[in-house]
């Protein structure tokens, strides 16, 4: 049967990845643009150009993140519970930073006071920087393994601390995500702006693409030196979701095992480098639209590289390895996966089509003149 439990679990692994990549591509440039705001906007009008380049669309973009969270809850409830309660303060920090965005965008230009606006600029910067960094740190910690376990009634116990999340490897992963979103945001600004901001964005694209690729390469070598995990008992991909039914072992370099088994997978990280370089070239050739597609592919392949390395693990446990969550034992029931699959199949294309329409309506450059002419209606 096509829609057996194993297939549905694989589909939901892919769909979760798709939603995360969707967020990185759309919400990602908003975060990048917000981080660049204080650096690329030299005066109030320039900063308003930057804010308004994403003003009409950022809200919809952020829904990718909200929906990815909802999908994690619905399809991988154990992973949602473990990650959100375990990474308590990291998520609290992300949440508090994300608070600054809706109010920052909407309230900033409602009053003319320079102090008021300056403070909201800082708020928007923090609201972009903190999530962009922490998302990567979280991925880094997933690769390192998370100290948690279940008791027999599936109550979760997290035994690490907040500070332990900030280990060197995870910080490197955080830098990858931060730099790649800055790169992506700069490409987007290059599309939406003219003149000075456009020129400054181009410099940022080149610089941050290179930094992203360098740290990504370093992290790649680093991965071969940290412990990876593997399932050491037989895998039953169609069984009930009980993470305690398997055994797990770890060893240095195991995260590269999938690439060894299936060398064609090397294409994914390789593509991250290729598309990174084409992003720089296209940006330099003043083809920002194509550069945006290219940088989107860079983000997608970097995220996929992490996902594929860990497969089938979602959240490996470093303290009691048998509690690790994998694609085969952390999902919802087959009934829920199926219903959510059909709902997604119907609604995702609808979402994509009206999102495309919204971007088409709002297409075109944001200029200094535009801001002056629409002083009271723009952000």
């Amino acid at each position, binding site marked *: 049967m096509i829609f057996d439990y194993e297939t549905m679990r694989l589909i939901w692994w892919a769909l979760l990845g798709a939603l995360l990549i969707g967020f990185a591509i759309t919400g990602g440039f908003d975060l990048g643009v917000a981080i660049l705001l204080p650096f690329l906007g030299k005066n109030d009008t320039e900063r308003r150009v930057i804010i308004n380049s994403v*003003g*009409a669309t950022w*809200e*919809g973009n*952020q*829904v990718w993140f*909200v*929906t990815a*969270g*909802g*999908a994690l*809850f*619905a*399809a991988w*409830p*154990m992973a*949602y*519970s*473990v990650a*959100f*309660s375990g990474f308590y*303060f990291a*998520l*609290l920090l992300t*949440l*508090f930073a*994300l*608070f600054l965005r*809706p*109010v920052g965008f*909407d*309230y900033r230009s*409602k*009053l003319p006071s320079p102090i008021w606006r300056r403070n909201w600029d800082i708020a928007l910067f923090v609201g972009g920087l903190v999530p962009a960094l922490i998302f990567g740190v979280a991925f880094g910690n997933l690769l390192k393994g998370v100290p948690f376990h279940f008791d*027999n*009634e*599936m*109550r*979760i*116990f*997290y035994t690490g601390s907040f500070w332990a999340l900030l280990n060197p490897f995870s910080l490197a992963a955080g830098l990858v995500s931060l730099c790649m979103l800055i790169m992506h945001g700069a490409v987007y600004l290059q599309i939406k702006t003219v003149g000075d901001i456009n020129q400054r964005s181009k410099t940022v694209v080149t610089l941050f693409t290179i930094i992203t690729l360098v740290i990504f390469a370093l992290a790649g070598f680093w991965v071969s030196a940290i412990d990876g995990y593997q399932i050491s008992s037989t895998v039953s991909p169609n069984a*009930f979701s*009980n993470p305690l039914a398997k055994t797990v072992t770890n060893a240095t370099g195991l995260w590269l095992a999938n690439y060894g088994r299936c060398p064609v997978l090397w294409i994914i990280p390789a593509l991250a480098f290729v598309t990174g370089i084409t992003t720089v070239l296209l940006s330099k050739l003043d083809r920002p639209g194509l550069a945006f597609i290219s940088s989107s592919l860079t983000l997608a392949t970097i995220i996929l590289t992490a996902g594929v390395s860990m497969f089938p693990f979602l959240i490996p446990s470093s303290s009691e390895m048998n509690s690790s969550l994998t694609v085969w034992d952390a999902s*919802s*029931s087959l*009934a*829920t996966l199926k*219903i*959510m699959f059909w*709902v997604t199949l119907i609604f*995702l294309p609808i*979402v994509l089509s*009206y*999102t495309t329409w*919204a971007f088409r*309506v*709002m297409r075109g450059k944001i200029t200094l003149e535009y801001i002056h002419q629409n002083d*009271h*209606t*723009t952000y």
Partner: protein
Amino acid sequence: MISESMVDLSRWQFAATSLYHFLFVPLTLGLSFLLAIMESTYVMTGKEIYKDMTQFWGKLFGINFALGVMTGLTMEFQFGMNWSYFSHYVGDIFGAPLAIEGLMAFFLEATFVGLFFFGWDKLGKGQHLLVTWLVALGTNLSALWILVANGWMQNPVGAEFNYETMRMELSSFGALLFNPAAQVKFVHTVAAGYTTASAFVLGISAYYMLKGRDAAFAQRSYTIAAGFGLAAILSVIVLGDESGYTDGEVQKAKLAAIEAEWHTEEAPASFTAIGIPDQELMETRYAVKIPWILGLIGTRSIDTPIMGLTEILEKNRLRVRNGIHAYGALQLLRAGQKDEHTIAEFEHYKQDLGYGLLLKRYTEKVVDATDQQIELAAKSSLPRVVPLFWTFRVMVACGFIMLAIFVFAVIASSIRKCRQNWLLRASLYMIPIPWIACEMGWFVAEFGRQPWTIAEILPTFLSVSSLTELDLYLSLAGYISLYTLFLIIEMFLMIKFIKLGPSSLHKGRYHFEIATGASL
């Protein structure tokens, strides 16, 4: 054992953040519709003033919307962060409506809200109107899905416990979606949102009229709000009554607690309008009773009795004892003893497993619970009467006050000479009332479900994450300081723009823009 104070802190945090979230949601729900109505009038009549109305009330909508978005994010995070056992135990069912809410509602709302604000010059009249309606549709769809999720917490249908995974699993999506508790709550809640927004527009328009400025603008806004508000408040009251009927069917303890119905009366039960309930003695002093009314609301009949708390307690004692059997069998199953007898035993008692779990608050060894512990668990299965009794009555009183004012407002809108200053002042002072009613309503819904997060399935104290008190103090302090700060900023902007009125649109035809300052 889970620390009681950690549970209390988690509950305070959830209560604070969700009640705060619901300061902004009802206005978004209702105002989006009012904007769509105003803009429709603009498109049909071609009169610019209706466009100005859409844009001005839209400005206030935007200020409110930002905080709605901000605080809504907390809700999604919090289930996993603070209620991770809940998320594990029921994520299979509860997660689905949340994910669908994202796909079906949030995308719609959030994508088009951008076009609503920035698309005026880029879209045709009809296109922009469509966008506004889609924003309204999106916000209301999101209410639908969140109430499907909440309705399931009140009346968990279409799900089965699976001992292999130690959680509830979905057995019927249709039952989840067409859950009577969810349907009735959805309409009651969105109607409450329409009422809130109507009271908001009505009150602010009355303020302009009292100040004698922007008369044409204010009168038109007042009329629309009055009409929409009257229809909305009538729906709220009728559907609130319907909600009482659904409670009578599925949440007997909540209904009995709201009504301080200590003992089963002979049908049809009388309604205690007011009195002083005493949980210890299980009686209500100075009770003023209206015969028949409760029986009619709760059962829609004159011969079905409404179960009193004493009788519910009696039944729950037995359910706790059954729950011990269910829990005992579950322990064997979890230990791998999956023989026919154990499975049969578990299947026989599993509908009372939740009541067995109530014992975990009093003992680690549920199967060896003493009679005294069983009594404590059974007693804990009843919600506390006093807070429910009063919050419910405040909510209902708010409803009827609003009904009266909306009736007068509608009359005043059609007959000019009825539009007197006392009514305008009443309209202005009414602004906070729908918010009080909404907050009370949620309190009744959630506190009335205690001691459960999922009625009769999962006790609240078991639902929490394994965090420390310090964790909770820190996060609670963070939420309270940020939320207070943002509320001050929001109120400041809201009041500033309300005072500016339509002059804030810079169209050159409103009060503060006209040199003489005496516009009409």
